[in-house]
């Protein structure tokens, strides 16, 4: 360690004055492209995730067309179908939802909501996005290599994933594994940032138990991701070695199409354990930010404090911890030692308790509230409906005996779409309607929004609720077509046609939403600052929308939790977190400040 004693003249300028000014971007490139501002990085993440998400959406249409009208689309063959489900599933889970919740909402909201100027390592944060983009590009490249992308299912189970009976076994699987590894590298850079920022960069007064639940959700989800992704990383590297160097981590002696292969002694179940040790927490990586965000949406738009805040925080933490103890509930019929079933059944059903508590508290926040049925509120309500529905079917699958007939059927497809597809996406929509004005200064169009909401919510429910019953009937998942099967009545095909038609309509509604996003950025009604009259810090910045460095010359000071809505005695129905105690009533407040932009006392 070199010691450096500054002389009087060399003394560093006081932080408040200079640190912001020092790293303000100087050129167009550093402002919009290679930018270190978490808010810009967030938008970059969001746009990239949205773009690749559109690919997954289009793939879902193709799959639905095939399932609804099995004989009409000769350009889809069984191999294509498997490639579609694989890319669709992987993109939706990893490249859309994980990236959007953590890279998108995490980057935008964490620094603003905890009163920080930015993430603590802005440069690494920027790198995180560029590595993510690279991962996406590698993934997209797999559509164009010989043999096409992998069709191994998003679970990528070996031996099948790297053998020739599966499409994309030549190049597709390699690119998929490389892309995942890159994604994990990129995510880790961002993830460490989010965690350290929450732990180290909160402004004065922002204790952990004053943080909005949005931050709690994203914070715990990030910790889960940092602990879970390495398992996938290792699995991916080992499978790459099996595929390229013919090691046998996951490969036992195999006779493929009558031919003895060069593998021996490996174990396919090892991969399944690694995959689900990541895969189950992944469900909560997607769910916990959703839980947090929806809590804030409900509280703000019902003008009521979140019910049981401390219980909500502990529930998030408990769910996060327990989520590492349940992974093998995906493996009840995998052939692992069946005695594990007892343990994993118990942990899985135990996790239902904190989850149910969260649901009760959301609903109890509505109870005796002053509910404004704005778009964010509508989406939050729709989230509760679909999440409860999907959570309940999880209790079916968590019980090993019930899982035995239902695993790998359409029941599972319906379950996970409801709980980790539809529900989180509804939160994302609600969140976008809620925070769009913060980003653009304008409101999204209400009429288009209503259309989007009703079609998406009711449509998604109509798609997935009846689908469970195909699973009861025994229709397996990942089937290109059912063909003639004795026990499947003709009416099942009619249901499939219905689902396909609804899926296309719901898909169309998303295009309306996209149009709204772009159109409103230019033509939307100007929102004014803090249009929802929210308490949290992101709405209290001196500039609106917030600028680089977020807080101008001085960071805010926090005096209260995030949920002071309709406090008795206060004359506004909300008290911003940075509102000083002596300004709670009108007599004391500065008269000249615009509504909702209350500044902390000097």
């Amino acid at each position: 360690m070199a010691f450096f004693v500054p002389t009087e003249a060399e003394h560093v300028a006081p932080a408040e004055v200079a640190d912001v000014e020092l790293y303000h971007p100087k050129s167009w490139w550093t402002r919009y492209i290679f930018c270190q501002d978490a808010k810009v990085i967030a938008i970059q993440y969001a746009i990239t995730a949205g773009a690749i998400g559109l690919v997954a959406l289009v793939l879902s249409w193709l799959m639905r067309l095939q399932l609804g009208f099995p004989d009409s689309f000769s350009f889809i063959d069984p191999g294509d179908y498997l490639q579609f489900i694989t890319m669709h599933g992987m993109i939706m889970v990893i490249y859309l939802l994980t990236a959007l919740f953590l890279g998108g909402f995490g980057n935008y909201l964490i620094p603003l909501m905890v009163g920080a100027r930015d993430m603590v390592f802005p440069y690494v944060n920027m790198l995180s996005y560029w590595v993510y983009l690279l991962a996406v590009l590698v993934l997209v490249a797999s559509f164009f290599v010989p043999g096409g992308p992998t069709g191994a299912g998003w679970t990528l189970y070996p031996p099948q994933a790297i053998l020739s009976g599966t499409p994309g076994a030549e190049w597709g699987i390699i690119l998929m594994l490389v892309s995942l590894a890159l994604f994990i590298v990129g995510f880790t850079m961002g993830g460490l940032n989010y965690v350290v920022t929450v732990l180290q960069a909160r402004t004065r007064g922002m204790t952990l138990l004053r943080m909005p639940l949005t931050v709690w959700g994203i914070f715990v989800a990030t910790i889960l991701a940092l602990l879970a992704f390495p398992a996938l990383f290792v699995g991916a590297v080992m499978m790459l070695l099996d595929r390229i160097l013919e090691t046998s981590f996951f490969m036992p002696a195999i006779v493929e199409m009558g031919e003895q292969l060069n593998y021996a002694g490996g174990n396919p179940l090892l991969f399944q354990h690694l995959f689900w040790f990541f895969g189950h927490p992944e469900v909560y990586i997607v769910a916990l930010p959703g839980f947090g965000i929806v809590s804030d949406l409900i509280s703000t738009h019902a003008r009521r404090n979140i019910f049981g805040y401390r219980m909500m925080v502990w529930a998030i933490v408990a769910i996060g911890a327990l989520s590492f103890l349940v992974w093998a509930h995906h493996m009840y019929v995998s052939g692992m030692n069946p005695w594990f079933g007892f343990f994993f059944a118990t942990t899985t059903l135990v996790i239902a308790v904190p989850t149910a508590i969260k649901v009760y508290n959301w609903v109890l926040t509505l109870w005796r509230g002053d509910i404004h049925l704005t778009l964010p509120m509508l989406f939050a309500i729709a989230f509760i409906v679909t999440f409860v529905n999907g959570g309940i079917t999880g209790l079916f699958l968590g019980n090993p005996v019930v899982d035995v007939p239902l695993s790998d059927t359409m029941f599972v497809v319906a379950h996970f779409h409801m709980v980790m597809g539809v529900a989180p996406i509804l939160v994302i929509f609600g969140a976008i309607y809620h925070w769009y004005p913060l980003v653009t200064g304008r409101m999204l169009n209400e009429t288009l929004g209503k259309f989007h909401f009703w079609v998406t919510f009711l449509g998604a429910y109509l798609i997935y609720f009846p689908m469970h019953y195909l699973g009861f009937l025994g229709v397996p998942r990942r089937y290109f077509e059912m063909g003639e099967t004795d026990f499947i009545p003709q009416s099942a095909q009619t249901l499939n046609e219905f689902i396909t038609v609804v899926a296309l309509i719901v898909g169309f509604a998303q295009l309306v939403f996209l149009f709204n996003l772009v159109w409103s950025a230019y033509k939307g009604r100007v929102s004014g600052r803090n249009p929802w009259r929210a308490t949290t810090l992101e709405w209290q910045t001196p500039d609106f929308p917030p600028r680089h460095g977020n807080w101008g010359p001085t960071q805010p000071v926090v005096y209260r939790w995030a949920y002071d809505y309709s406090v008795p005695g206060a004359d506004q129905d909300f008290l911003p977190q940075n509102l000083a105690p002596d300004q709670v009533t009108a007599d004391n407040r500065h008269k000249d400040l615009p509504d909702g932009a209350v500044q902390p006392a000097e």
Partner: protein
Amino acid sequence: MNKGLVVGLVLVLVAVGSVVFHFLSPWWWTPLASNWGYIDDMIIITFWITGVVFVAIILFMAYCVFRYSHKEGRRAAYEPENKKMEWWLTGLTTVGVVGMLAPGVLVWGQFITVPEEASVIEVVGQQWQWSFRYPGKDGVLGTSDPQNISFENPFGLNPNDPNGQDDILIEGDDLHLPLDRPVKVLLRSKDVLHDFYVPQFRAKMDMVPGMVTYFWFTPTRVGTFEILCAELCGVGHYAMRGYVVVEEESAYQEWLQEQPTFAQLSGEARNGTGDVLNPVLSEAAADSAERGSVQ
């Protein structure tokens, strides 16, 4: 019109509609053909417990939306916590969860405990077809090893194991099972994961290369049932089908007599007279092989 009323009514419709759909749905499980009625009972228990919770939550939410939606002068109640209510709800939820878990693990205990008297058969999966092996007169399956698998010896039986000589091998034909006799199904795969799934039996299990997995059941209804593959195994996955014929003991024995043993088959193969062993690629495999997606 009052927004709260509209949204509230839609929520009621979702809850009531789901329940009505459940009871009127023409899509429901296939009639049971095994002893696993307990599994169906568990599903019914789970339906009742979770269904009540689902309907209660949605209806309560509908009520809240209707009753507390914004109007001039309304102000929300300020109540950060209500410890008593939270503990009550936690307690009730725990009771519900135990109500599902307790019977669940009891049935699971049965599911993984094979009765002493169960007879043993083996199902072998490969891309994309099923084959079956019976232990023969001695009641014991001979040992096998993937390294032994060849055109002449598709099951990979150990040619020097006396227990294997009388094993009965069925390729490209149906599996037959006697009625009302518990059977332990040993599962093996030559190449990738598969899953032996007959919806009417409810039970299923993955087949994993390098391992022998198992489950057991008792067929309780005479008939022919379709076998599906329920674990993704490549392009032919959806077309990997087979049949189980459940029949009376006498018909079963009669059928069994006519099937070839390992000793007979390997004799024929040596004499060059056998043609039974040619593995038939399923339609799908052939299809996609034509299109060149299978190397």
